[in-house]
């Protein structure tokens, strides 16, 4: 699947295209098929997201989405060396998902 990501213009937070807008949770990312270019052009013009781009990802059992490249998994999770600053600070195994 193809999903879209970027950084929120105001805050810099990592965001994922959920079909309606931008979510900070990668699980909300939707397959955009071949519409990536059109969505990114529209969103770039709307000045909500910085440096948006399309990436390959795989759907996970249970409804998750796993970006293909480790860099985007680190972006989705947060710094592996500071789990307290990630979106899932209480999940001790969340970091394993990155590797």
């Amino acid at each position, binding site marked *: 699947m193809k999903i879209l990501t970027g950084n929120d213009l*105001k805050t810099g937070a990592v965001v994922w295209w959920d079909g309606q807008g931008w979510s900070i949770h990668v699980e909300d990312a939707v397959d955009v098929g071949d519409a990536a270019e059109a969505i990114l052009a529209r969103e770039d013009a709307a000045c909500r997201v910085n440096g948006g781009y399309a990436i390959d990802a795989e759907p996970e059992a249970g409804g998750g989405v796993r970006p293909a490249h*480790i*860099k985007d998994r680190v972006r989705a999770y947060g710094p592996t060396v500071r789990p307290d600053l990630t979106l899932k600070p209480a999940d001790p195994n969340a970091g394993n998902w990155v590797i």
Partner: protein
Amino acid sequence: MYRYDQYDHAMVQARVEEFRDQTRRRLEGKLTDDQFKPLRLKNGLYLQLHAYMLRVAIPYGTLNSVQMRKLAHIARKYDRGYGHITTRQNIQYNWIKLEEAPDLLAELAEVEMHGIQTSGESIRNVSADQYAGAAADEIIDPRPWAEMIRQMTTFMPEFSYLPRKFKIAVIASEADRAALRWHDFAVRIVKNEAGEIGFETYAGGGMGRTPFIAFKIRDFLPTSQILSYMQAVLRVWNRNARRDNIHKQRMKILVHELGEEEFRRQVEEEFEHFLTLGEDFPQAEYDRIAAYFAPPPFETGLAEEIDRSDPAFAAWVDQQVVAHKAPGYAIANISLKPIGQIPGDISAEQMDLVADLAERYSFDELRATHAQNLVLPHVRKQDLYAVWTALHEAGLGEANLDLVTDIIACPGLDYCSLANARSIPLAQKLSERFADPARQQDLGELKIKISGCINACGHHHAGNIGILGVDRKGAESYQLLLGGSGDEDTSQAKIAGPGFDEAGIIDAIERAVEQYRSIRTPGERFIDTYRRVGMDGFKEAIYG
């Protein structure tokens, strides 16, 4: 230390307001990302993996307690409670919001700080010996010259559209604590046979994907001619640089392609021209700047003895405390490498504590080092125990300066958008693997440096043991290098052989270290043994 005059204040405040307007226009959609990016980079604001990152300049690594407290305040108010000391003696914050960045810069300006020259194709923050003004082995305090170079390069038109970034270092001792020859341009302050102070100058160094060690371009340059000389160097580079290829734009590439002799010839030719313009500093200007760096009012008649009855304190003194030029005083190094922690990270609370210690015990001075540690430069020996006690209670009492756990590591793939692999987890695992203090002492000086990509922010080329993280078909892989040094015996590390995964590189380093232990001769450091036996003396132990 240097204090802003009315012009400095006006320039920095004007820059803040200019950036506030640029940010407003970006947020309103009046500037595109492509238009805004070079503007924010000129103020040290990057976009990294998780957020905007702000790099704040600490000129030649010197700051005072008011500035450190402001950095702590910024960590709390605008970031997530911590900062990261970089390998150019700066500090960076990882979680900045664009909409708050102008207010942050305004707060920095209140304490004479900014993010200018910490990014982009500029002359970057000038680095210097972290012991400047305190070191027993220095000829003079190099910081007045570092400050003069900073002032003359900050907004000079010819230097504002450089082919690429340009890094400068200044030292004034035989010992090199600033990785001098890994800089584009560097000066070592020397004294000639007539007793005159001058500069031994180096050019063409740099790390990155194409590492070169700077060559000595001049044995002795009169200090009064430094502006003309630097202009000549930069003019030759500016004129001839490969602006068509980003990987060949650094001055080191030009020096390599022209050759040392031709580069020197062109610089000398330009130098003759610049001398005729009469633009060099008058002595009065040096005297004005140097007055800011006058030695603090050291007390006399102080005791030299240190009560070593507490063994943990004694171990810290042996490792972290360095000779000072003033009797009764010492230089105290603060390790930002607690075992298993993130190299260079410091919490807001620790910043406040260090600021308090500087104010109370070190004439209000602090230094940041390129090895990602801090220094209290002027501590009475009789105050060392109080300093250590406070540091120890705050988790800053590690005694590992220049030992195997004093690891330099770039932010790597945990934070950096350029990185290919994570650096920090390796540093943490190595730190834990070699945590035993007795083992560290037995191994002696051993500098491990880790970069998460070929840009080499973790100085892996200069590591006795270097690690370079690479992307191997989407997975992290690590190359092992041996034999580098950023000290006065500068050398470039060489790749040992095939790379490793994360677990493999830790074990490989342990095998290399144990090989050193088994073949070293008395008094040999790791780097000495490597130079004696070469890579062949380690390869079989590493790869079997």
